[in-house]
């Protein structure tokens, strides 16, 4: 499972490793679902270590995004490297997903929506 870090009662941070692909996408889905089950409206995904993102990895985030948004929260990506941004851009996801430059901005975004 991915390392998580509670920010406050509404927000939690999930840290990715170097890869988010077929080998661990199901674990990401499980981590995000677990956070939602625990009542966290906002989930920040820290991608500072992420070097490789496959379609399965993208799917693991999109698959649970609706639930967060339906509950008035969001899934916020931060520290996204240019190459990963490029992949998200190719899929027309840069405007669809909430992407912040760093963790501080991501936290501020979540706090403002609480």
């Amino acid at each position: 499972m991915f390392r998580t870090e509670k920010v406050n009662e509404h927000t939690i941070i999930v840290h990715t490793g170097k890869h988010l692909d077929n080998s661990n996408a199901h674990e990401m889905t499980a981590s995000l679902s677990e956070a939602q089950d625990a009542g966290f409206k906002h989930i920040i995904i820290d991608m500072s270590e992420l070097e490789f993102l496959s379609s399965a990895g993208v799917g693991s985030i999109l698959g649970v995004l609706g639930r967060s948004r339906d509950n008035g929260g969001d899934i916020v990506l931060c520290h996204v490297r240019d190459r990963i941004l490029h992949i998200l851009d190719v899929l027309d996801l840069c405007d669809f997903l909430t992407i912040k430059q760093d963790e501080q901005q991501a936290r501020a975004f979540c706090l403002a929506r609480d």
Partner: protein
Amino acid sequence: MHVDTNKCYKILVPVDLDEGAVEGFFGELEIVLEDQPEEVLIDCSHLDHATSGHIDLLWEAQTKCDESGSAMRLVSVRYGLERVLRVLDLYDLFTIVHDHVEVGAEADETGQGGVSLELEFKASMPDINDALSRFHDFLVRLGVPGTVAFDLEIVFYEVATNIRRHSGLTETDVIAFSATPEQEKISLRFADSGEPFDPTSATIDFDPRKAIKSKQTNGIGLTMIQRLVDSMTYRRVGNSLNVVTLTKHLRQGGKRGVQD
């Protein structure tokens, strides 16, 4: 330890080199060598990443086999181990059997001033990842700009995993791959003997809004592939072979690529 009918012994190299595992390995080797076999196969399939401890273990095993007059051969050598052996100039000191688990790599002159890469790998995730590492190193050697190389690696991964998912291949079936630079472009070719599957016939209708509503995230991989390359063709050859060929411009980064 596995013994086949020809009295050929195969011993698995442990990943974790705690005292018990190392003792167990050499204990097995000792028992095998008492039988004075012609050859002993050392199975390295679990060594995705080799440490100096693994190299020491292999070297000691090699010495023991030499002393007993048995030939030691390394089988199922992963790319990570092969790379370490080459870096340490030890590659030629071991006899490596390139069996079916092994991903074969060649760089040949194409006659057009470039080199090509040819790989054959099993349709299992460890072998796909192994082949991806080889492809990555090939692109680095070729001097392909970083962003374009990253796109190509994503394309490789998505095509290979798509084949694995849709062609009904078993984990032991082989996917043949070649990458051939041609002037300003690179051509990637995948061939497999699975069920017919034409990725170009799939209608791409990936819409993130629909995807999160339906929780259906199918089609992301094909969308990535089609948008990251300049062309993709599919042929069914002799009713037995799927051949997918993709090309990508090396400078412009494909239809949706970015400049470095």
